[in-house]
């Protein structure tokens, strides 16, 4: 009992940490206006409440009403080259749920015109949603792999700098993530316990995910594949489960069509096709870009070593094929979203890749913790940990500032490598020392994550990131 309470306290502490790092400078970083979608989503919600008609930025063909206007909210046009915003109504680019959350919050704070919906209001709900995602990722790992993997996932997902910054952006993907994670949790439990209520929960969350954006359909794909994995063939039981899930989820997704019908199904259909025919800007090299270049927006790159190593472990896992059900769900989740990403791909905006990140972090955390618990792939675990540490240190100090520490680094890292190789060849048991070393490195990783986050202010952003 005491152990359980202690674990719960740690869980809550990590959530507080996640919220704290997300909240710091949240209204200034990422620079407001670098993605005007953030405003657009909120304007859609605000206008829906105020006028009963959604009004937002689009520019897609097929809208009956377009107004071009300079809306210099947060005075972002002072710093960013800006054209007039193409404002359309009734806005149908995406379902309105995210807009209702962020715009609704701004409305409650007194915002009544578009210029009122400043980032200090509209970003607040999204940092809360991102923090919930941290909690859900932890819960999935805790339930399926044990507390330690949950803890590791929580610490990484709470503090990885790119993930923290992305978690402040009002993008539908940030709202799809908790739904996707909830579906993964529900499916994990359903496959384990065979209780129909878990399938109902998966259906409700999958339906809600599509009310944020149509790419939320990834939840449908995941459930389809997970049930197929359960039965290993398309039989009567498979169809029963799929039918039941769909009967729960589809009516929720259908609410978007009902909503579209209020403003005219012709416009709804035109925008749907217009969306479908968007420029395929992610290009044929999308897979390489996914692994190599992490972005926040279209042009703002912030390569994140946690994500890159996550991809490496995921690819390794694909070759080895996971044996545990939860491991398979994680893999299927990645592959499901990869399909959606490739199919829906338009411009290479960073936010389209956000849903990969919690999954990659869970895969990485599982891999690291297996090294800790069972000494599995120890050399690779040390190598990954040191790779992340090195990249984090490189972000904190320049190559010349690093020189005083070079000797320690040379001996330390090559010594660790030699040590782990010898341990695995000679099968020496030094569990305590292995764990101590790993613990020191991992504490340093989280510390350097937070230290880097603390460095990011407006000046640092313009000089180093933009």
């Amino acid at each position: 009992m005491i152990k359980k309470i202690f674990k719960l306290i740690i869980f809550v502490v990590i959530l507080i940490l996640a919220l704290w790092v997300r909240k710091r400078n949240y209204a200034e970083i990422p620079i407001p206006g670098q993605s005007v979608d953030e405003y657009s989503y909120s304007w859609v919600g605000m206008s829906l409440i105020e006028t009963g008609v959604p009004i937002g930025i689009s520019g897609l063909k097929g809208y009956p009403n377009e107004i071009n206007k300079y809306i210099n909210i947060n005075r972002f046009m002072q710093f960013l080259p800006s054209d007039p915003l193409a404002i359309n109504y009734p806005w149908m680019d995406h379902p309105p749920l995210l807009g209702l959350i962020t715009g609704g919050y701004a409305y409650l704070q007194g915002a009544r015109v578009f210029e009122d919906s400043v980032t200090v209001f509209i970003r607040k709900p999204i940092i809360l949603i991102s923090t919930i995602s941290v909690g859900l990722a932890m819960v999935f790992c805790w339930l399926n792999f044990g507390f330690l993997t949950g803890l590791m996932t929580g610490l990484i997902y709470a503090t990885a700098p790119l993930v923290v910054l992305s978690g402040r952006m009002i993008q539908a993907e940030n709202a799809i993530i908790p739904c996707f994670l909830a579906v993964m949790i529900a499916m994990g439990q359903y496959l384990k316990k065979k209780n129909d209520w878990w399938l109902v929960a998966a259906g409700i969350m999958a339906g809600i995910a599509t009310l944020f954006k149509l790419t939320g359909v990834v939840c449908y794909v995941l459930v389809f594949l997970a049930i197929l994995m359960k039965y290993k063939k398309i039989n009567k039981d498979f169809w029963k489960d799929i039918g039941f899930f769909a009967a729960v989820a589809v009516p929720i997704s259908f609410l978007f069509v009902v909503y579209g019908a209020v403003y005219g199904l012709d416009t709804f259909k035109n925008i749907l096709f217009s969306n479908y025919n968007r420029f395929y800007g992610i290009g044929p090299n999308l897979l390489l870009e996914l692994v190599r270049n992490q972005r926040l927006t279209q042009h703002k790159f912030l390569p994140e070593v946690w994500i890159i190593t996550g991809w490496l472990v995921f690819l390794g896992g694909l070759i080895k094929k996971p044996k545990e059900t939860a491991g398979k769900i994680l893999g299927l989740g990645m592959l499901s979203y990869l399909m959606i990403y490739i199919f829906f791909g338009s411009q290479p905006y960073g936010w389209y890749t956000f849903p990969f990140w919690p999954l990659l972090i869970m895969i990485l955390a599982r891999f690291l913790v297996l090294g800790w618990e069972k000494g599995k792939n120890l050399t690779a675990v040390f190598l990954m940990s040191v790779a992340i540490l090195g990249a984090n240190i490189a972000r904190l100090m320049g190559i010349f500032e690093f020189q005083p520490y070079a000797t320690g680094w040379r001996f330390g890292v090559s010594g660790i490598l030699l040590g782990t190789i010898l341990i695995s060849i000679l099968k020496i048991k030094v569990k305590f020392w292995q764990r101590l070393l790993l613990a020191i490195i991992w504490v340093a990783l989280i510390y350097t994550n937070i230290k880097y986050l603390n460095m990011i202010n407006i000046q640092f952003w313009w000089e180093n990131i933009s």
Partner: protein
Amino acid sequence: MKSRREFLKIWGVICLAIMLMIYFGLKKYSQKNFSKEKVAEIIAGKSKFRDTTTNLCTYQILGEPKVGKNYIKVNFWCNDNSKARSTLALVAFEDKSLKGILKEYARIIGFDEKILKEKNWYCTVNDKEINQKNENDQIEQAATIDCFERKGLRKHD
């Protein structure tokens, strides 16, 4: 769960009720609350949270819109040698009179347009003075409006 069939019956009724509520509720709500004036107000209304400036050379609009010749330049020149230079797409201006352009520019930047008269700003369009006689004239494409904090002030780099 005892019976999936029983659950789905209740679920179906709940979903249908929500769908009808959204369809008819939203339709009625939008008919009651929507008007073109409200749209104009929500899009271009002045924010109560935004600070207004009295230094007209502090803020500008960055960038060159890719609109061929369908643009205007608006420059503000201040006594302390500071300046604010903006190039704006003409399509974003509903009222294309000189007075209308300056009014909309004031909204975009966030200052009270009355300050121009109160503080005797001297404004020209393509080097011709803007006054009460021509302030209602329509602006030409690619025109340049210059406003000086005092008459006689020169453009400076």
